[in-house]
């Protein structure tokens, strides 16, 4: 049975900074619940001798050498910014602090 409750959906929405209406929370509770239940059926197949993986293929590596490449110009970097001071992005003052 799904662990997805309306409270949990509301909590996740708050963590993700998504404003949801009560109707949307109700709809998503059902939809997310169905997804989680579907994934849970896989757990029935998994036995203790099968290690958990986060990827279907055991790929590793894929690193790059420590060699500098091409950088953006400041103009390019700021091109998509809603606001800037010519060299830095300007954002609304955020209450809170770095994590």
């Amino acid at each position: 049975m799904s662990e997805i409750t309306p409270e949990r959906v509301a909590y996740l929405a708050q963590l993700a900074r998504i404003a949801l209406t009560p109707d949307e929370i109700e709809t998503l509770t059902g939809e997310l619940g169905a997804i989680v239940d579907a994934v849970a059926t896989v757990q029935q197949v998994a036995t203790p001798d099968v290690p958990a993986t986060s990827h279907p293929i055991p790929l590793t590596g894929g690193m790059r050498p420590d060699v500098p490449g091409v950088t953006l110009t400041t103009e390019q970097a700021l091109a998509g910014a809603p606001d800037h001071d010519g060299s830095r992005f300007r954002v609304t003052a955020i209450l809170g602090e770095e994590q």
Partner: protein
Amino acid sequence: MARAELMDFDTALELFEPVLGFEVHVELSTKTKMFSDAPNPAFSANEVTDANTAITPVCLGLPGSLPVVNEQAVRYSISLGLALGCQIAPMSRFARKNYFYPDLAKNYQISQYDEPIAFEGTLEVELEDGTLVQVPIERAHMEEDAGKLTHVGGSTGRIQGAESSLVDYNRAGVPLVEIVTKPIVGAEHRAPELARAYVSTIRDIVRALGISEARMERGNLRCDANVSLRPRGEQKLGIRTETKNVNSLRSVERAVRYEIQRQAAILAKGGTITQETRHWHEDTGTTSPGRPKSDADDYRYFPEPDLLPVVPSPALIDELRDALPEPPAARRRRLKEEWGFTDLEFRDVVNSGLLVEVADTVAAGASPQQARKWWTGEIARIANAQDAEPGSLISASDVAAVVELVESGALTDRLARQVVEGVIAGEGTPAEVVAARGLQVVSDDGALIAAVDAALAEQPDVLEKIRDGKVQAAGAVIGAVMKAMGGKADAARVRELVLERAQA
């Protein structure tokens, strides 16, 4: 809390047992960033100065950009893990730490969560009097640094009252290793000292490994200090605070001491400690509340889908283990013995943070005592006056060259100080400064004898005294000769000549 309200440190220690924990962030000095080939500002040769110039689409989290792990950063991280006595994970993984703050453009930081690259270590830390403390290391994991925010519109540049914030993403993506200790118990009244010694040891290690420039004032090495108190006899850990923004060794020590005294004052009155981050203020020597922090902070960690697991080969780990430098405490013991320093002399060097400089100067050919004398004396004095690090003012090889000039008799100590001054002022190498300023000692006996004869002739009474055997009277004549030579004479040789000519 005003300092007057704090509990006296010794009383606090009588009532409570302090428990420490540290999170130290080390910026690696790779040429490029952790997941992007943008130049790494924490590698000073990259000379990154202007805002938003060392960035690629990966640093900005632009759509379609993908992170790729910097192999060198992984090697550095493994070396650091090994130096901390950690086990290296045969497979470790990156994870996304999701949070909303504009210091990272992606709304998440790539870090490591339940599969760090290094875990379960022990670091031997030496206190000032030589006491060794084993600090248990929980883990060391790889992650990326965040960008730099400047708050504008507020009265003090701090976030309170700010109207907007300006963001420079140059630092976003700089490779970091975060070293987390287990709770450290048993430090007792030496807890503040241990805090300083621990961070200092990490700094020595990363410098010896050559994996970070480790300049605390530049943020290459940052320490968050966790402090909690528990009543004597209590087993359960107390509620802790995490003090951030501690950017010098001295501050680490002061911040821990302050938190012990502050928490003790609250607990003794029956109050409770709020679990929170606190900010250290260098000017007032106090901490102030930051953000409430609970163990249940929900960052919705999940495995980073854009990156493959890191699987270092056993051969690589062996190679890096074999290349590890001597551990700092062992190195100090060896150097002290080799140099023949007294405890006091050696402690003076270590506590001034000049061990590397003195060692390099000895390696460049100077005698240990001379190297110590110059670094902890004249150079430290100038550095202090200029509010700079001694090592940034003059190179070890230049100091060794000055020592060589003094020992060969080409310079007196007084002239040598002028040469050091000139080198620090950017006038060139010691030899160039000597030439440009004309500081060579007058070793031509002819010129010295003429000056001695003239001085003796001017002071016939002194001449009489010397002839009567009152050798100490020669001082007046030696002084006159040194003055006449503009200080460019070897006083010992002048004395010899004065006594010789007086009898002539």
